[in-house]
């Protein structure tokens, strides 16, 4: 049987295959220039969502890594301030121990108590990017009321408690008559409560006891601030105020000794609490650092996986492009030759 082929199919088969190869060539060129499939969705099909999920996860990790910078800055600042507060407290404690209850350098001690109180207040009122970092979640307000400010409620409370107990102001020369035992009673019953509970909130602190919490990795949420309502700061404020503003330079030696003893105990306890706080912050710092490093590794893995899904092998594509070019050229020359191959030319 002789096979029959129509003129139409000779030319159309060639035409169709050239069209197909040209479409492939265009796609290959896109792939070469972008490094990914020309139509990722169509190539990956039902796995497109996987690629999107990986991208979503990777970008979330990137976001958390960026927010961890903010967290780390806050933690670093907190740590530095805690360190300086601790060393200030330690210095004062050392001076108190050296003087050993003698009121000979009471004036110097009083002055350093005052400056320590000032630095405590200004430290706790530190801001970072407009936020008061020791204010707990109430970051728009100063954490601690300035004791030395005009009409300060904390100063007024101390003053009125003193007057109520002894019938005179702290600045009065008559304070030298206050006995050690009545000073002890005043410190325990009238003075100490000013630095605790509702009095602390009313007179001293606007801070929220709720500290800031941050997500530092996909699964880890940690406390990332220290509130000014922490007992360590209350004790420090109490000890500093005691030395700075109870007329210590005029007190009798036994009363002065009572004050310094109470202050020493408070400072010792505060220092140990501060060290605990520093350790806690340090732990969160290292957690944050670890989480950031871990996420960086995770992102590397994710981007490799995304690459595996979406990327093309450039060598393979280059070879394909070369092949296609050769084939298309062959088709062209064949078309030209077939055009010559007609009986009409010979009639």
């Amino acid at each position, binding site marked *: 049987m002789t096979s*029959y*082929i*129509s*003129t*139409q*199919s000779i030319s*159309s*088969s060639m035409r*169709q295959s050239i069209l197909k190869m040209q479409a492939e060539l265009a796609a290959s060129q896109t792939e070469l220039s*972008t*490094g*990914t499939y020309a139509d*990722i*969705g*169509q*190539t*990956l*099909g*039902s*796995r*497109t*969502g*996987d*690629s*999107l*999920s*990986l*991208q*979503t996860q*990777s*970008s*979330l990790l*990137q*976001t958390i890594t*960026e*927010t961890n910078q*903010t*967290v780390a800055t806050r933690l670093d600042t907190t740590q530095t301030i805690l360190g300086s507060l601790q060393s200030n407290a330690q210095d004062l404690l050392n001076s108190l121990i050296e003087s050993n209850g003698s009121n000979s350098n009471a004036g110097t001690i009083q002055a350093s108590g005052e400056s320590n109180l000032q630095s405590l207040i200004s430290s706790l009122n530190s801001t970072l*990017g*407009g*936020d008061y970092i020791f204010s*707990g*979640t*109430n*970051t*728009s*307000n100063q954490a601690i009321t300035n004791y030395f400010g005009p009409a300060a409620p904390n100063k007024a409370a101390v003053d009125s408690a003193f007057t109520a107990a002894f019938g005179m102001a702290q600045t009065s020369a008559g304070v030298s008559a206050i006995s050690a035992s009545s000073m002890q009673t005043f410190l325990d019953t009238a003075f100490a409560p000013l630095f605790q509970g509702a009095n602390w909130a009313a007179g001293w602190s606007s801070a929220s006891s*709720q500290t*800031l*919490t*941050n*997500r530092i990795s996909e699964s880890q*949420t940690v406390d990332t601030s220290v509130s000014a309502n922490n007992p360590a700061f209350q004790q420090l404020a109490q000890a500093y105020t005691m030395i700075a503003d109870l007329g210590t330079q005029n007190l009798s030696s036994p009363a002065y000794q009572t004050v310094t003893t109470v202050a020493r105990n408070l400072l010792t306890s505060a220092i140990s609490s501060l060290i605990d706080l520093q350790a806690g912050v340090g732990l969160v710092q290292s957690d944050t650092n670890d989480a950031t490093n871990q996420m960086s590794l995770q992102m590397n893995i994710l*981007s490799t996986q995304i*690459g595996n899904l*979406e990327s093309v092998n450039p060598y393979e594509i280059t070879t394909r492009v070369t092949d296609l070019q050769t084939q298309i050229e062959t088709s062209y020359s064949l078309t030209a030759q077939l055009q010559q191959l*007609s*009986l*009409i030319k010979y*009639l």
Partner: protein
Amino acid sequence: MSLSSASNIAKSGLNTVSAETSFLSRNVTGASDTATYSRKIANVISSLDGSRVASVTRASNLAVFGNLLGATSASATQNAISAGLDTLNQTVGDVSSSSSSTTSNSTSPAALLSNFTNALQSYEASPSSVTLANSAVFAAATLAQGLNSAAATVNQVREQADSGIAASVQTINSLLAQFQTVNAQIVGGTATSADVTDLQDSRDNILSQLAQQIGITTTIGANGDMSIYTDSGVTLFQGGAARSVTFSSTHTYTAATSGNAVYADGIPITGSSAAMPIANGTIAGLATLRDSLSVTYQAQLDGIAGALINAFSETDQAAPGPDLPGLFTTQGATSLPTSTTGLAGQITVNPSVDPSQGGNALLLRDGGISDTANSDYTYNTTGDASYTARLSQLLAKLSATQTYSASGGITTSANLSDYAAASVSWLEAQRSNVSSQSNYQSTLLSTAGTALSNATGVNINDEMSKMLDLENSYSATAKLLTTIDGMFSMLMTDLGNLA
């Protein structure tokens, strides 16, 4: 045998050769005709009286032509679906990762959701920042708009499919009318043994155009009369009369709209109610797109929108009151939506939290978005600038598992981000399937076309060589006539000499 009978035979030969040459010219002219031109064959019979063209037939192959019709319909189905899915794919956009470092350029709800989650995460880390609050709300608004425009695209695809069906139905009716005329001429011509081959070609041409629109099968009766049925068996043309195909189109689509079915001869041939649904052709493809694929994708988008509204709803903090829509809501909503249908098209960011509409972005942190006058829905009762409890809760809800309607055709229980990704996967899987189907069908179509062309088409070289034969035959016959003429003259001269 006489000289005159020899002369008659030679004359008939000349006639036959001329007739054959005329068919040959028809074939050569038809060779480049892309429509279904078939080779005409002159059937020559020889007898004692010479030769003559007894009849003309055309090269035909019913089986191959049937294949071509089937392949045409199947390919048209896939092309219709493929074009629609490519439009739907605009809602996904570029999925490559190269453009996405932290913010992706992709327009898919999945990518916009990811951007929004990241913005919320950044805001949670610095809750006192108005800038970050604004950018989180902005990302939320972009997400809502993304869902709106995706829903609009779905409706647009459905509207286009609907008007495509209407156009297709019109084409079918006009083709059937043409068919009726041509078929009647063929039946008449066959009865009188006229040359109907060109009419048959034209009838085949109509059939292949018809097959583009709707899958068909045909049968031929004894007198050349043809009947057409849909591939599901509904009559389109029978007994010389075309049946009408009707469709009433719907111009505007929303998520709740369902389009009308196409009726042939009064019987529905598309849609779920159809007892004899057609399998192939443009109409079948468009109907699948309009009634099935788009609807499923719409349900997925609605599922995403519904889950967003739920995740960001606010709970009464004071008394056991109803939950109210928070950041994400629909225009004028006073309670949580009960049905997700159409939510993707309606979802919007609550004006009370949107700075561009005069709202306060910080409400995202504090709560009370649902009703700024009602403090029962405020979470941050102390007004702390760095209150994070609500933001953490929102982030947790955003990544919590939610349930979705089964009409989405994908998982019914997943977290939002996974659901949105699964929706993209679903769409791309459909595209990928249809694309490979479409490639396969167009290969089949081109093979069937080539096979038909080879079976019934014209080869010019073949016709040319035939022409040489005819030429020789013509000159031989002419030579014969001259010779007979010479013989007659000789006879006459001799007769004259005799006289």
